[in-house]
């Protein structure tokens, strides 16, 4: 996997340096990982089995950690990686063309998914959700850029509280608090979008 990690690192760096095409070249790798996870979900009978959040980012990171012990470099890498994941996954959700909010009652669908997942997914899996979160994050970024960054790192980048704290160079307690209020804020923002009845 080392060469892949290396390539991901280079592509991310290229992208952050302004090479827009790098994201397109990164996309198949992200899709590949997505498909691997999907196969896992289809195969595993019992929920509860957890996978590494994003092996892709982690492999790339391990690669990077050896070559670039500089802290700022690492933080930058994660920020870029999480943003890339966000772009690619939201594009993926859009391309599914499942974005139809019209007369639907999506909140119920979310809860239903939660209820049906036997603890596997605490939240819905509708691709609409990714798009809705992406939209809400844009609003959040105007209000509080760091909070939206935390969501990017945690949700799209798959980082733990601890890792996020390290990347942003603040205490875990700070991240925990920020994460708490940001989730409340986002949850409220998303529930505002719902209209019930026709």
């Amino acid at each position, binding site marked *: 996997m080392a060469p892949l990690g290396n390539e991901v690192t280079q592509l991310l760096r290229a992208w952050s340096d302004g090479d827009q095409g790098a994201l397109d070249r990164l996309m198949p790798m*992200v899709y590949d990982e*997505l*498909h*691997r*996870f*999907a*196969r*896992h*979900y*289809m*195969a*595993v*009978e*019992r929920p509860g089995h957890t*996978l590494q*959040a*994003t092996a892709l980012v982690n492999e790339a990171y391990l690669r990077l950690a050896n070559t670039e012990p500089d802290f700022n470099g690492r933080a930058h890498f994660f920020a870029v990686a999480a943003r890339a*994941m966000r772009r690619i*996954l939201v594009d*993926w*959700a859009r391309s*599914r063309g499942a974005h139809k909010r019209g*007369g639907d009652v999506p*909140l*119920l*669908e979310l*809860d*239903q998914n*939660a*209820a*049906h*997942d*036997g603890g596997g*997914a*605490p*939240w819905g*899996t509708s*691709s609409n*959700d*990714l798009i809705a979160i992406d939209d809400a994050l844009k609003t959040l970024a105007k*209000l*509080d850029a760091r909070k939206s960054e935390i*969501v990017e790192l945690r*949700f*799209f980048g*798959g980082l733990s509280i601890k890792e996020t704290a390290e990347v942003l160079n603040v205490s875990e307690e700070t991240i925990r*608090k920020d994460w*708490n*209020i940001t*989730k*409340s*804020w*986002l*949850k*409220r923002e998303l*529930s505002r979008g719902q*209209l*019930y*009845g*026709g």
Partner: protein
Amino acid sequence: MEAERWRKIQQVYHSALDQQADSRAAFIATACGGDDGLRREVESLLAHSETSEAFLEMPAMHLAAKQHAKDETKWNMVGKTLSHYRVIQELGAGGMGVVYLARDETLDRQVALKVLPRGSLADETARKRLRKEALALAKLSHPNIETIYELGSQDGVDFLVTEYVAGTTLADRIANGPLPESELLEIASQIGSALEEAAGNGLVHLDLNPRNMMFTPKGQVKLLDFGLARIVKPKDGDNTRSLTTMAVPAGTPPYMAPEQLMGGLLDVRTDIYAVGASLYELATGRTPFRGASLPELIAAVLHTPPEPPSAICPGLSRGLERAILKCLQKAPEKRYQAVGELLADLHSLEPAQPVTAAPAPRHPAFPAHAKEWLRPWKVGLVFLGLGAAILALFLFSRRPAQSFAARDWVLVADFDNQTNDPIFDQSLLTAFSVSLEQSRYVNIYPRSRIREVLARMKKDAAIKIDDAVAQEIAVREGIRALIFPSISGVGEDYRLASRIRDVKSGMDVKTTVVKAKGRQRILDSLDELAAKVREDLGESLPPVSRTSHPLPAVTTASLDALKQYSIGAEKRTEGLNLEEAKFYFENALKIDPAFTAARTWLGILDFEHFDREEGKRLLSEAVRSADNLTDHEKYGLLAFHARAVEGNLEKAAVPAARRVAL
């Protein structure tokens, strides 16, 4: 400016979270110092924090992967053959599965194939629903109801085969605007006819809405999706009305009758309501009730009269409007009581004319058949909370209330706060307890003792005293009655409920509900609730003598051990078969070797009846861990040990005296 405000909001939010739940509201009020906007903002965020614990905790990659897994499952089906059905094309997908157009290779005809995805995505709920739908459809034979062909399973894939209905759903028709009255009447009459067939076979559909009504190019209406249908069994000697309830309120909210939303008793009148809501929409292009949020929608359904359809579509006849509004009455008794009554009214409006020139469906080549078929609309958490207490009321209110002996211990569980308002978390319990204790008949098990019990149970003292925990404490402590209070609410309408459980039978014997309009009325209503509960507990009834010995407080973290112990204690008290009692105490001790109370009793039994030396050994062991017992048990053990094992009566007198003094 905005940044400053946001900073302030965060500050108050986090400080409020650090507060005890009961002092939170007061804290926010003080911290906001009259700034109502700030207070509202913080409160609304806090309300969402209650439900956002699991939110976003699964990385985006996994959400996407799960979605992709679902996509894959259905993509894989096209072109494949399941049993003797060749899958041609997908017709629609819902939360629980996919509907395909397929070809029956044996009979050479087109069918609709409803398939649940295999593997982890096909859960038991979806499976049950599919089977239920099949069983419901199998009972029915009617031109306006889709026909079932087969329910099958192959390689772990469950599938339901039905008649393939080409056409559009009525929801698609509405998208083109309201329907002309003549056409509407014809459709209504067909729906009514289908419903009559279902009701005649003891079925309620429970998810009637325009999405589940197909309209064929020939102008025929077909009801689909019987996945939520229930069989309502006629009671002996009473075929006039039969009722059912749903464990979890489910359906499509804008078309759900009040009793369905609130988890009440359901019958054909619930379906009649849904028909009314559908006809309303067909006539006006709008559902009768709307809301910016689910709670708002529910509040409207429960309390607001629908806008008369003629106010939206002035051309509508009075007769049709009357019929629709009668279907939409809040109280089932005020609706049509049978489908026949509705049909009679509809027929009197205009002689049914077949719709000859039905407008061409918009997508004749790609029918929307069963698009919504598997959409489960399982109603969410907010919703569940609302229904649960009320549901309990309906389930249990018909059982006779049992009375409890005066001064029997009563354990009041933590308030089940089903609102999003954390203010109710602690405050209501305190108020409720105070109110209950005004009765000299009610002896509320003190919280301090609950904490001690929890410590012996090796549980966190801060644990929520919910159903399971309360039951466990009650069994350990010989408490006879449990009270489970709860609050739920929609907008300004609150419902306070209290459930009484007889610990011995484990059955809920009575549920009482009072309503409160507005927050400021809640405490008054709480008093009213307490008064009713006191009455239910037997304050006004002659006390019943105790039928069982309260169990001594025991020390084990294992419920299984506790159960064995309890049986042993019961056998011992009966005194008929002490060998059996010994057997159960031994079991308890095997499960939890540190279970001192079990060791004590086993020791006493052995000492007195079976094996004196073994008894001595066990009792001496028990004495060494006597601190794991309640004081009452401990002094009892010490006295017994001193007297029986050591033969020292003088020594025995000390703990015996202390025991009496307790």
